[in-house]
């Protein structure tokens, strides 16, 4: 549906989400201290190799590169004026590597695996009152209700246009009140399904909420 993830069976897809996130954060930290164009060039080649391994279609790669390059070029240009061409190349390359690597993680990891990884990261916080399993439920609820809210916004705008209200921001207050009402109903529906009670007993949590709309 609306995920940036692309299905695949490559070795890159098979790496657990947690490991990919860890690699990404390690790379983000490490590359920051790199001052050599050769090392960054090597890193870029490594990322390109991973893209090849993951068999990401050319069209997708091109679109990704096209969104990063203007930013990287603009940054390098500023850097060139301020400090010199070496720093400019470093900064542009570093950004290209990091953003492409992050995009690769996104492309090759299912949303549900990513949610599970985030739950795992949050688990040590459980004694502080954080309930990781709720993250999955909340993510699923939000995704499920994006189209609903969009439709409500369109309805409010259409109704206002019919009454001759042209101000494009007048739809906000009615939309917000409608949403708060919807939240009341949704809260009662969740209670009726025992979500709160189930969540209070670990192990009985409705974990399937991750992939499936409520």
């Amino acid at each position, binding site marked *: 549906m609306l995920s*940036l993830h692309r299905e695949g069976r490559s070795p890159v897809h098979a790496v657990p989400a947690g490991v990919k996130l860890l690699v990404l954060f390690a790379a983000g930290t490490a590359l920051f201290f790199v001052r050599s164009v050769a090392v960054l060039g090597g890193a870029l080649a490594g990322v390109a190799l991973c893209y090849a391994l993951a068999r990401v279609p050319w069209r997708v790669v091109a679109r990704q590169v096209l969104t990063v390059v203007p930013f990287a070029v603009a940054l390098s240009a500023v850097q060139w004026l301020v400090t010199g061409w070496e720093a400019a190349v470093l900064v542009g390359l570093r950004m290209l590597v990091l953003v492409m690597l992050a995009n690769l993680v996104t492309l090759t990891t299912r949303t549900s695996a990513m949610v599970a990884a985030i739950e795992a990261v949050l688990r040590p916080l459980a004694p502080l009152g954080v309930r990781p399993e709720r993250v999955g439920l909340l993510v699923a609820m939000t995704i499920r209700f994006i189209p609903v809210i969009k439709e409500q916004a369109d309805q409010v705008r259409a109704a206002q246009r019919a009454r001759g209200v042209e101000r494009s921001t007048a739809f906000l207050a009615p939309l917000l009140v409608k949403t708060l009402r919807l939240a009341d109903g949704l809260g009662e529906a969740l209670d009726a399904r025992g979500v709160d009670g189930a969540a209070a007993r670990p192990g009985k949590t409705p974990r399937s909420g991750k992939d499936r709309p409520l």
Partner: protein
Amino acid sequence: MMIRRSDGRSGRTGGSGLRTKDMAQIALFAAIMVVLGFFPLIELPLVPAPFTSQTLGVILAGAILGARRGGLAILLFVVLVVIGLPVLPGGRGGLGVIMGPTGGFVLAYPVGAFVTGLLTERLWRRYNHATALFCNFVGGALVLYAIGIPWMAVAAHLSLAKAFTGSVVFLPGDVVKVVIGSLAAVTVRRAYPMIAPGRRTVRDGRA
């Protein structure tokens, strides 16, 4: 009426203390935040970062739901970005955005909503257009700049001054959003008050 457990009832639930209705509000405001990204408020040519209403979502979440729920709603939105859903303007998303030069602004969103909510809660009794403007400007603009600009300076290897100049082009637009958000927040407060003085929520009077 529904049965509601009070916060002290069980240690586990009490720790996170979120009721189902809070969860519903959090999820729906995260969804509003996404939907606001679909509506271009004003489109500026030549500006790489799409200029949309999304920081308006930060303001509205804090001003309407308060610090805790508002902050969590926008934190949930950031989780959606991190796990790779294209929920930022222009269908962007994923960790690439966070790692990029504007990532600090995205990470600052929940803090901005929290601060907006905190100020709103403090000023709830005297909440009007003027106080709303104050709360929303501090939380929805100042906080975002205070986190986003240093992040940009570090991520893009710019001096703070350069990053500041680069971001200040957005200030007029952000002021417009603060004004729009304040108008909406005051209207919603009248129609459907969510933050009550002394108590966390108001839910009676509306069966």
